[in-house]
């Protein structure tokens, strides 16, 4: 990563920014800290074009709304994975010029969308009115007639816990000049009307209040309830007819979705061009940019800057200075960036672990899934998807990771003699009476689990040692050779020593290995006790810390035992497969054959899914917890270059 400072003339700014964007390899950092420094502010001020940015943002969000609407109406078959279409920048420009009706169409869709939502809310309102009128539908007096010269009509609801007959008799005791009608009822209340003398109205209302009566008044309605309902229903029909025409008109506009997407991407580019200005400083006639350029792209940028006669300089980041992180790996380990990124990018002072991690990841993944059939399906699936679709980003990288994982799974399947477990062998025998001579190359983990367990531990040990080696490398790189010897070297001895001491005789019988191991252990213990407490002040606490540090061996023990999952998960895949074969081959004859095929297909799909997930998660865990735990420190910020962050169209530059 190189820090770059650029000063250029205002007249070429727009042109240059476009070229830099096309290159897409320069991160332009924010200059806000400089703007608080009076020494800077006396010369320069902040560039920027906030109004333009805001206007574009509004437009973009409108277009997003339009695209979402069109997406709903688009009935054409969608591809399994959405990918960006690649076109050249000339084509992009030409298409933009051709689509002069885009803004018109956008406005049309927005308009239609608006009227659609208006119709929707109107419809809802009417439906609510219908609901409130429904209970009164058998009430045949016009709703606007609430009084005559001497009488009044009271309408309202009474909770249905009230005994309505009792209420009637009670009311008739107070006055006999009142007609009570129960119009309807539902699970909560009665709907009633009371016809009474106007002079007694207040008394009756007072009386009814005790029973939880609440008056209902229909404002602005004339005619009976039933008439009103019919009217409302007619207008509902009208609304739905209107909605249909609008639907049709939007559907017609679906055909211009691609143009609008193109326009969307064009606006995004314009917005970003304007937005980046706020990261730049300017004087009356010049501009100033500070940013970061990856080492590999330096020449390309230099050429452009020379062309525009800018002043510039490249600097390596200073000691301790934070810089953005761009992982750079080879063709095999490149996709494994995604695994590292999922954890966290390395901090600037750390190293990129991807290249070292990748082979272990593949190895462990394969060991845990360990089946030729599954590995083949995994690799084939990923391969087909990658060939058919141009998938970018993390997902595309993941597919490549799984492709390699599948290859490794096939390798381990051959070693373990697992072809869909024993499914292929049993299937061939059960279905076609053929004996397939598929057997293991190295070991059958179901019969000799201890061998595989031992190998798992050894692999774990190697993995851990490599992790510690990375730490040692970094210490040496930073000139702390002594720390590398005491903190890593002694631990190497303290782990290898006891193993040789205890098991040396089994490795090479009669060799001096146990003796060597004994002395290694002793040397390491003394070394650790003397050095691990060196940060403490006095000799006693130095020694105590040193002795206590020996307890750290339990951590290493736990780490190594953790690799037993390499065996355990491999066993899980294998045993489930053999259960499937057993269940499938329980019945003989034609039905038995059909059953076998069914059990085989469903069972192995499920087994592949759950164990594939398990292998992915657990091999990631072994990297993140055991391996990264030994040396890795995350927390870096991703390199975020000034480039075309388009969503639908991928623009290929001719450079």
């Amino acid at each position, binding site marked *: 990563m190189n820090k770059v400072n650029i000063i250029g003339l205002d007249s070429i700014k727009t042109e240059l920014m476009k070229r830099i964007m096309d290159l897409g390899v320069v991160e332009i950092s924010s200059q806000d800290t400089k703007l608080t420094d009076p020494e800077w502010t006396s010369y320069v001020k902040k560039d920027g074009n906030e109004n333009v940015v805001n206007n574009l943002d509004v437009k973009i969000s409108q277009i997003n709304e339009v695209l979402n609407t069109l997406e709903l109406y688009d009935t054409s078959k969608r591809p399994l994975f959405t990918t960006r279409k690649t076109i050249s920048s000339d084509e992009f420009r030409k298409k933009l010029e051709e689509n002069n009706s885009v803004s018109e169409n956008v406005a049309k869709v927005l308009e239609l969308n608006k009227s659609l939502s208006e119709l929707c809310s109107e419809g809802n309102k009417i439906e609510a009115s219908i609901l409130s009128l429904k209970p009164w539908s058998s009430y045949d007096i016009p709703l606007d007639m609430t009084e005559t010269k001497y009488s009044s009509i009271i309408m309202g609801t009474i909770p249905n816990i009230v005994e309505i007959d009792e209420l009637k008799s009670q009311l008739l005791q107070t006055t006999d000049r009142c007609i009570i009608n129960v119009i309807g009822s539902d699970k909560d209340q009665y709907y009633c009307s009371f016809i009474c003398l106007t002079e007694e109205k207040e008394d009756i209302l007072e009386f009814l209040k005790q029973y939880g009566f609440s008056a209902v008044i229909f404002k602005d309605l004339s005619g009976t309830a039933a008439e009103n309902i019919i009217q409302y229903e007619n207008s509902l029909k009208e609304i739905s007819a209107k909605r249909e025409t609008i639907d049709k008109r939007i559907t017609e506009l679906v055909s211009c979705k691609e143009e609008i997407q193109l326009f969307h991407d064009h606006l995004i580019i314009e917005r970003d061009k304007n937005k980046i200005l706020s990261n730049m400083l300017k004087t009356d006639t010049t501009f100033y940019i500070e940013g970061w350029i990856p080492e590999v792209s330096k020449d390309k940028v230099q050429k452009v800057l020379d062309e525009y006669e800018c002043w510039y300089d490249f600097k390596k980041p200073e000691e301790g200075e934070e810089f953005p992180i761009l992982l750079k790996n080879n063709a095999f380990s490149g996709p494994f960036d995604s*695994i590292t990124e*999922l*954890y966290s990018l390395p901090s600037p002072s750390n190293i990129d672990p991807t290249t070292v991690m990748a082979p272990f990841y593949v190895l462990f993944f394969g060991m845990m899934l360990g089946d030729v059939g599954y590995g083949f399906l995994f690799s084939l699936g990923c391969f087909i998807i990658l060939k058919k679709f141009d998938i970018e980003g993390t997902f595309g990288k993941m597919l490549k990771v799984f492709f390699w994982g599948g290859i490794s799974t096939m390798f381990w399947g051959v070693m373990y003699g697992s072809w869909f477990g024993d499914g292929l062998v049993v299937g061939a025998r059960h279905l076609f009476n053929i004996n397939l001579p598929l057997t293991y190359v190295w070991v059958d983990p179901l019969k000799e*689990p*201890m061998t595989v*367990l031992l190998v798992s531990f050894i692999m774990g040990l190697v993995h851990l040692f490599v992790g510690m080696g990375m730490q040692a490398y970094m210490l040496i790189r930073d000139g702390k050779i002594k720390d590398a010897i005491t903190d890593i070297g002694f631990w190497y001895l303290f782990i290898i020593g006891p193993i040789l001491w205890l098991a040396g005789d089994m490795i090479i019988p009669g060799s001096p290995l146990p003796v060597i191991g004994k002395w290694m252990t002793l040397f390491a213990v003394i070394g650790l006790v003397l050095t691990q407490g060196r940060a403490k002040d006095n000799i006693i606490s130095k020694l105590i810390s040193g002795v206590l540090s020996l307890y750290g061996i339990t951590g290493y023990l736990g780490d190594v*035992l*953790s690799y*037993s*999952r390499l*065996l*355990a*998960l491999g*066993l*899980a895949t294998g*045993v*489930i497969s053999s*259960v499937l074969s*057993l269940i499938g081959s329980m019945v003989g004859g034609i039905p038995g054959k059909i059953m076998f095929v069914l059990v085989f297909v469903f069972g192995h799909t499920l087994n592949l*899914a*759950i164990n594939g*997930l*398990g292998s992915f*998660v*657990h091999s*990631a*865990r072994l990297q*993140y*917890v055991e391996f990264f735990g030994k040396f890795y420190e995350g927390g870096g910020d991703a390199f975020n270059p000034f480039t075309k962050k388009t969503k639908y169209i991928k623009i290929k530059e001719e450079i």
Partner: protein
Amino acid sequence: MELTMGGFLAILGAAVASMAGIGSAWGVAIAGMAAGGVIAEDPKKFGPTLMLQALPGTQGIYGLLIAFIIMNKIGVLGGNIAALTTPQGLMFLAAALPAGITGTVSAIWQGKVAATGVHLIGKRPEEIAKAMVYAAMVETYAVLALLASFLMVNGIQI
């Protein structure tokens, strides 16, 4: 076929092992309930939440696996139960305990961790790997229990 106390105890062992499924059902349910809430906000997260929900399901499978190995070894699946002595039966029962008990408990707790993972990706979908690793940390002990049970069952002589 001869019915012995040993045979019964061995079958009981297989039953205990496969009862890790209780924990898995529990754990998957906890994670599933959390997932339902997140889906209500954003149905597109179905895939990632389903992956997290599936994680506590493995203990049930591990339990079944041990049950199957026991059944296979004592011949239940072939229809000929070996005449086991009572100590042999007890050994099978003992060997089944790690898979059954550790499986059950770890699945419930893994379900809880998976549920918080679901909430995490509800807010930050890009952090799914971290959520899965947290859940896998719990699963480690189920894997170890599976291994212990497997090695024990494997080692019993009949």
